């Protein structure tokens, strides 16, 4: 038989982890909300059945908020799945079951997975889900999808349930507290016409659900009859939560001893569902000497934990410590990745390629009298160029190792929270912060994650800004150039490049918000669930590293390799004279790039080699540096009066100009052709202007250090003073509903929106 099984649940409960387990896929997972922004599906064979497993974006309720939730809602409402596997998280059972109740109200077949049992076990607690199973009349499978979990049991239960389940007999008693019959008497006919179950439509009408109200198409008399019933929206949520509190009361208890919960785990996983309920029955709490003594001390902490609050956040999100801790963490990551550790491995690889491949190969080719151009192509074009990129594999691995740790531990969500003050002012939300942080990995894939952003203008803005954050492909460029010109301080220079990219993105966001109307998103609402701190698992970290290292190696082997061959050939052959080395002829690229070269003369790298590398970088940014390597190295390019300043400016330009063609394609996909061209012009324009300013200021500092630094400091102090003054004057009329800047405030004194 062919079945379709959809995975549904709140955001960040581990749907994709479970999906990866079931289908043996490597879809990206992360400890934050909204990693999955589109439907993903894969067919598997199970017990002679073909089962199409569909992973859906997370949602809190069937009344949706963002476009990605809409994808899930539509899929659920269409009732096109044979089964919905509803995944809940054990730490957060109440809010997760809220969605479960809505699925049951809709009368779709549901199997409930209670995930993250490992976290409960670590707290020394057990879950007695028997009562929940009995009341809701659906099979429950406890699980730890992050670790090796018995997916087989889940699939067994699921297939069995699809085959055997009959009509839903569950009586959701809380619905009796709502005047559903009265509502049905008003809207019943419309619901039938719209093809909706009258009872379900009635619940949604009480919830004031715009989607269902739109489908019902009620007339004036009906609407006023409904309005006369009063506002029951809060009541619906309240009775659901009261019901959940009732059925989950006492479900989570402290385990008596480790033997007990080992046994419990054992039974929960191995005994078939129909019978395991008895074994997983209530375990009475036996007072323990040690336990009692610690009890009081633990009590306050435990009560906080019941509310979902982690004590660690008292420090990490402390008003004064939060930003210093963040900067210290970032600095540490950069020092390790681009300093001693990363550099050592890179040096090792470089040495290996040189001594084991380059030297023997060129030596052998020369000894058999191979033509010069073949030696050049293989040696300088391919091995030096491609090898020059390959040696950055260790740094890329380290960077993604740290990104994975930040992401999986839940720290990235804290970063989004503490920087929200800035983002709020420039019309972005915490979700756009995620997209931009993903931009440190790969611009093109980050742009695609913007799809989940609720506000269209904000989405466009985020898509336009993400390319300015320094992706991992730009890393070899900085590392090589900074290593050549500023050996000791290269980690800090590279850190500076990342900061500059972020600063440019934020400044542009502020500018767009003020001056570009189609991008002005105004004050945005922002409700983001904060994931708990989790210990990253080696498996997931390795998976993230492997996924990215694989992409990098494939790029090195295909795009970068091919491009390097082309660049080398075009830069060593002329239109007429063939191989140019040793001849007085200009190569093809020398002629073409020579046209553009004068544009870069103000920066001290107005030569055809620099232009060639920048042009080839349009395909993949790593090629910027592999081209430089095969064209004679950095020394051959930055030869002006101030080579190190030119080199720095070159890094700035590389940071800011078009990341790659793939990113442009992604922008076109998310924002349309018009915005892609806008973004292209923006990137080149910003790169040129910032480079110009950078080189100019740098030149002033070099020529007249004392005076310039003084002038810059004075200018900075004056700017800060003016900014403070303006905010003081603006803040004067501040109302009690906002923290300042009241002239732009959207609220009146009575708290209602204007």
């Amino acid at each position, binding site marked *: 038989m062919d079945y379709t099984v959809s995975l549904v649940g709140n955001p960040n409960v581990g749907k994709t982890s479970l999906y990866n387990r079931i289908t043996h896929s490597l879809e990206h997972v992360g400890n934050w909300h909204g990693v999955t922004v589109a439907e993903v599906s894969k067919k598997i064979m199970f017990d002679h059945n073909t089962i199409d497993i569909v992973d859906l974006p997370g949602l809190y309720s069937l009344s949706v*908020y963002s476009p990605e939730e809409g994808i899930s809602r539509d899929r659920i409402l269409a009732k096109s799945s044979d089964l919905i596997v509803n995944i809940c998280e054990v730490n957060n059972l109440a809010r997760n079951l809220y969605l479960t109740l809505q699925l049951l109200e809709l009368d779709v077949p549901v199997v409930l997975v209670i995930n993250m049992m490992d976290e409960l076990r670590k707290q020394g607690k057990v879950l007695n889900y028997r009562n929940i199973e009995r009341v809701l009349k659906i099979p429950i499978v406890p699980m730890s999808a992050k670790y090796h979990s018995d997916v087989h049991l889940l699939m067994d239960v699921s297939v069995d349930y699809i085959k055997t389940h009959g009509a839903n007999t569950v009586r959701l008693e809380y619905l009796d507290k709502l005047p559903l019959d009265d509502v049905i008497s008003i809207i019943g006919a419309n619901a039938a016409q719209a093809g909706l179950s009258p009872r379900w439509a009635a619940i949604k009408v009480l919830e004031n659900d715009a989607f269902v109200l739109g489908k019902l198409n009620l007339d004036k008399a009906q609407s006023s009859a409904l309005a006369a019933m009063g506002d029951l929206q809060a009541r619906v949520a309240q009775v659901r939560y009261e019901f959940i509190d009732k059925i989950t009361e006492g479900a989570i208890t402290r385990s008596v001893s480790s033997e007990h919960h080992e046994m419990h785990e054992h039974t929960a996983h191995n005994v078939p569902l129909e019978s395991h309920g008895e074994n997983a029955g209530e375990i009475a709490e036996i007072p323990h000497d040690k336990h009692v003594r610690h009890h009081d001390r633990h009590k306050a902490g435990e009560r906080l934990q019941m*509310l979902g609050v982690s004590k660690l*956040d008292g420090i990490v999100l402390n008003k004064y410590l939060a930003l210093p801790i963040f900067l210290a963490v970032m600095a540490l990551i950069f020092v390790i990745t681009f300093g001693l550790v990363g550099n050592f491995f890179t040096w090792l690889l470089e040495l290996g390629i040189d001594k084991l491949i380059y030297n023997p190969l060129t030596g052998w080719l020369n000894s058999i009298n191979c033509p010069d151009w073949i030696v050049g192509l293989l040696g300088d074009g391919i091995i030096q160029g491609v090898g020059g990129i390959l040696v950055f594999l260790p740094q890329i691995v380290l960077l993604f190792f740290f990104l994975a740790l930040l992401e999986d531990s839940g720290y990235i969500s804290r970063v989004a929270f503490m920087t929200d003050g800035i983002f709020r002012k420039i019309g972005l939300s915490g979700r756009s912060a995620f997209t931009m942080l993903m931009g440190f990995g790969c611009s093109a894939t980050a742009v695609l994650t913007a799809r989940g952003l609720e506000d269209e203008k904000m989405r466009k803005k985020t898509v336009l800004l993400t390319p300015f954050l320094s992706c991992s492909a730009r890393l070899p460029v900085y590392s090589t150039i900074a290593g050549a010109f500023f050996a000791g301080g290269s980690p800090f220079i590279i850190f500076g490049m990342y900061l500059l990219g972020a600063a440019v993105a934020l400044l542009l966001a502020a500018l767009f918000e003020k001056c570009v109307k189609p991008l002005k998103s105004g004050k945005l609402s922002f409700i983001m669930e904060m994931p708990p701190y989790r210990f990253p698992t080696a498996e997931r970290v390795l998976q993230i590293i492997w996924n990215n290292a694989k992409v990098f190696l494939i790029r090195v082997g295909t795009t970068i390799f091919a491009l390097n061959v082309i660049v080398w050939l075009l830069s060593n052959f002329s239109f007429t004279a063939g191989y140019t080395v040793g001849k007085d002829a200009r190569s093809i690229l020398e002629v073409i790039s020579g046209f553009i070269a004068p544009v870069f003369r103000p920066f001290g790298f107005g030569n055809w080699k620099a232009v060639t590398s920048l042009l080839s970088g349009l395909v993949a940014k790593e090629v910027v540096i592999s081209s430089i390597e095969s064209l004679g190295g950095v020394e051959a390019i930055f030869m002006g009066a101030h080579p190190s300043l030119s080199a720095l400016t070159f890094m700035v330009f590389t940071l800011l100009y078009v990341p790659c063609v793939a990113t442009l394609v992604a922008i076109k996909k998310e924002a349309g052709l018009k915005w892609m061209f806008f973004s292209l012009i923006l990137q080149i324009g910003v790169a040129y202007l910032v480079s110009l300013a950078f080189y100019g200021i740098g030149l002033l500092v070099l020529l007249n250090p004392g005076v310039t630094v003084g002038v810059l400091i004075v200018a900075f102090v004056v700017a800060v003073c003016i900014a403070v003054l303006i905010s003081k004057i603006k803040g004067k009329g501040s109302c009690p509903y906002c923290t300042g800047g009241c002239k732009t405030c959207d609220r009146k004194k009575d708290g209602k929106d204007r």
Partner: protein
Amino acid sequence: MTLLDAKVNTRYKVSGVSGEGNARRRLLDMGFTPDCTLYIAAVAPMGGTVLVGLRGFMVALREDAASLIEIEVA
């Protein structure tokens, strides 16, 4: 008072949720229902956004959403 007036590291009880439409329903769906206990875990360094713990999870709310949640001292 509303969540905007809440102090860090303090416990409160929800007395109601004002507002309308999507914003209000999202808060209700999230579990901000009357009598629910809240804990203010942090306020963002630049203000305007609060981190609230309730029902076993934490959620960050900007001032627009926070101003809709009416609270009283628990």
